[in-house]
């Protein structure tokens, strides 16, 4: 797989899984996709080791975009990216975009073979300035 991969990080595993279902419906298996949600005890929150694992599952040579919901998901995702091996780190980006819409549009863009910057831009165009 050479298309950009998608990671969905929500405080809620149900939101993350549901958003992933919507992505799959749109793009099938044309992009690698992983989701994670919940704190290390399974409650609402986010979890750095689980985010690192999700990035690894979605990893492709074209890179990975990460869609997040609220503050802690963003901070923990940025921390997780910093903890990746240096060669991967530069090819993983967090999108400033709404999690569900951003994931679907990013995946649609990725499924057409767009590069990392283009996939991110497509998602971020959804954000109010």
């Amino acid at each position, binding site marked *: 797989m050479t298309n950009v991969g998608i990671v969905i990080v929500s405080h809620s595993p149900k939101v993350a899984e549901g958003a992933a279902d919507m992505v799959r419906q749109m793009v099938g298996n044309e992009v690698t996709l992983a989701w994670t949600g919940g*704190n290390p005890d399974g409650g609402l929150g986010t979890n*750095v080791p689980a985010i690192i694992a999700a990035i690894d599952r979605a990893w492709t040579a074209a890179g990975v975009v990460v869609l997040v919901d609220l503050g802690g998901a963003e901070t*923990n995702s940025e921390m997780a990216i910093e903890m990746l091996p240096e060669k991967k780190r530069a090819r993983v980006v967090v999108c400033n975009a709404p999690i569900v819409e951003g994931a679907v549009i990013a995946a649609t863009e990725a499924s057409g073979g767009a590069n990392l910057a283009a996939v991110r831009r497509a998602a971020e165009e959804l954000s109010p300035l």
Partner: protein
Amino acid sequence: MRVDRELNRRLIVATAETVIRHADELSELDRAIGDGDHGLNMKRGFEAVLADLDGLASKPLPDLLKAVGTHLVMKVGGASGPLYGTLFLALGKELPSEPTVDDATRAFRTAVGAVKARGKSDVGQKTMLDVLVPLVVALENGGRELLARLKETASVAAAQTVPMKALRGRASFLGERSIGHLDPGARSASLMVAAICDALGAAR
């Protein structure tokens, strides 16, 4: 400052036990203006720290601090994990094994800068930085009875978050309604500072 395994142990236990003992209070503060999990999250992180007490206490100070930071990053599960984790990781990177006050001041200034970058925030936004930044100033001013003054600075600075409007974090969603509440991150920061200052004072 002479750092040995016994002092390491006392610093870790004092900090962790203070956070764990105040977990309900921190969550209560967070329920008022956030998602109500700050105490539980911090407790999870510091329980992981305590579980590794023997391993941590036997490390040189820089490695100890980095290991504490990593535990917090991996276990807390909220934004406070990477924020406090970054603080401890940066302190571990910046401090020598037996720091002077000047070393501590320089390291703490750099580490607080790393927290600002991690949180994309600064002083005045009703966050832990409203305690951490005044501590940098107090360290830079130095002088007598420094530990007592650091503790006092942290406590006063935390209380000063009450009239602030939150501009960062979940509390910022409340806008004006965040005014009148003590910030839970400022409170946890001041609790940790008090515990560390007390333990260092008792060790003299």
